[in-house]
């Protein structure tokens, strides 16, 4: 870690310019800040991001009740519904964010500034994760209270670890997508829209992933929420283990692998895509 002094006008004022890790962390915090603080200034998200999704989750609960499903499925739906907030956040506020920043004119500023784009993406991820955690927690707590869901947590330590692994892998995936989306224009928006329901389906947001054929479930495991959700259900619901897809240690092992793969791929791809986008002049284009 080092910092250097540089003087614009030595007689009047000097600005301390950080570099290295300190500068990287400052950039992360600077990009995370508007994610967390900005949305607190716009209170309408509480209605649109907590109340409305809770009603949507409730609809799936009543479907299960209408067809006479065992009560544990209600808990599965509430947990899955809460986790949809993270998938939405990764799709809309990570993957397609650089496209949106390009439309707003911020992307060129990011590139011009002497900061790391990886730090920008990490800041977006960190801010998004914290902000979304509030929403997911609110949906889980309210859903559990309204539908009187019984929990039997096997291990809080494992639960925390699984959640963190799933989040790191998921947001790593979001960073990877963000770099891919750097080259896209309006299609980025539509591709994000397209990736909602199919992922809800194949990741088993509203039912145990074990219901699918082994290879379908295994293929869906490339999305970190699939195994993260399955492992968390195994750890918190009395019948979770019986409906689990793989054992928890195996799922944690795969999630750890996904963390490494996605973060490494995001770093490599971001560097490549940034160069490619600059070369092809796509950083400031706005194909409408």
């Amino acid at each position: 870690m080092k910092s250097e002094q540089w003087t614009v006008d030595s007689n009047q004022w000097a600005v301390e310019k950080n570099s290295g890790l300190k500068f990287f962390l400052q950039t992360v915090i600077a990009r995370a800040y508007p994610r967390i603080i900005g949305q607190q200034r716009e209170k309408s998200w509480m209605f649109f991001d907590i109340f409305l999704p809770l009603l949507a989750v409730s609809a799936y609960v009543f479907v299960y009740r209408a067809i006479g499903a065992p009560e544990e499925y209600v808990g599965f739906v509430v947990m899955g519904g809460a986790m949809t907030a993270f998938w939405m956040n990764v799709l809309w506020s990570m993957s397609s964010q650089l496209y949106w920043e390009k439309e707003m004119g911020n992307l060129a500023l990011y590139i011009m500034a002497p900061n790391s784009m990886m730090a920008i993406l990490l800041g977006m991820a960190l801010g998004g994760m914290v902000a979304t955690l509030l929403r997911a927690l609110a949906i889980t707590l309210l859903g559990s209270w309204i539908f009187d869901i019984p929990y039997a947590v096997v291990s809080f330590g494992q639960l925390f670890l699984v959640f963190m692994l799933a989040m790191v892998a998921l947001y790593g995936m979001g960073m990877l997508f963000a770099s891919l989306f750097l080259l896209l224009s309006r299609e980025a928006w539509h591709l994000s829209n397209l990736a909602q329901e199919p992922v809800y389906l194949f990741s088993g947001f509203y039912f145990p992933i074990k219901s699918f054929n082994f290879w379908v479930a295994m293929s869906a495991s490339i999305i970190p929420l699939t195994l993260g959700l399955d492992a968390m259900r195994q750890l918190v619901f009395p019948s979770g283990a019986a409906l689990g897809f793989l054992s928890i240690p195996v799922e944690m092992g795969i999630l750890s692998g996904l963390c490494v793969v996605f973060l490494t791929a995001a770093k490599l791809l971001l560097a490549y895509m940034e160069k490619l986008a600059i070369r092809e002049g796509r950083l400031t284009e706005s194909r409408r």
Partner: protein
Amino acid sequence: MYTKIRTFRIAAWLGWQIESNWTDPFLFAVYSIAKPLAGAAILVVMYSIITNKAFDTPIFPYIYLGNAFYMYVGGVMTGISWAVIDDRERYKTLKYMYVAPIHMPSYLIGRGVARFIVATISVLITILFGVAFLHVKINLDAVNWGLFFVSLFVGIIMLAMMGLMLAGVTLLIAQHVWFIGDAVAGALYLFSGAIFPLDVLPKFLRPVGYFMPITYWLELLRRSLVGSVAQAFPTLAGFNNNQLMSILLGLTAVFAVLAGVIFYWCEYRARERGLIDIVTNY
């Protein structure tokens, strides 16, 4: 009147260009098919896990058809309300719309037409898939086509009015990146009897469902397609088709008045607060 029609026509054309010309027709077709089929498949998988694939029970076509037609709700409401965000923050043209000699509600409703067309394709494909692979029995000779098309037409107007209300609210709020039309439609899923009969809801929530015109609209569509199956459910069994249609028309009129009041009030507030050309991002 001519201004309204002209505005609507041009806005519909513009909306279709925006929605469809971002890719080649093949990818657009995949996009239009994959999303709704996946949405329907979630319910099919949930149902098949619990009932061991008993697709020939009356509740299955009730759920399946309700879900299929419900795609119109998200499509139309999102199409109309998203136009505000799209024009205000992405294209930054909303301020120009306001200085142009156009009728703003007609413009926004026109922008929703493209989503309506895409939703129509999605509904058709979903129903065809259900008939072909999931034992959803629709006897074309027994379908009450008159009731079907009249219900569909009135329902689309009703949804457009709800979309206009949401567009008004959207004028006052920041963009939360994803589509608030979808979020509102997802929430109304609970009260509309789309995927389960209203009797399943707790008693204190049922009045909300009875006040929602979508409830009667979906019931009429189900009755027109699979009459005997739909009428077997007790929620609205006491009403005949004419009574249901009268209720739907009445509630549509109420929502039209509400839409006008809410939209113009929100628009007034947005002008007062200088929100017509605001750009939000976090």
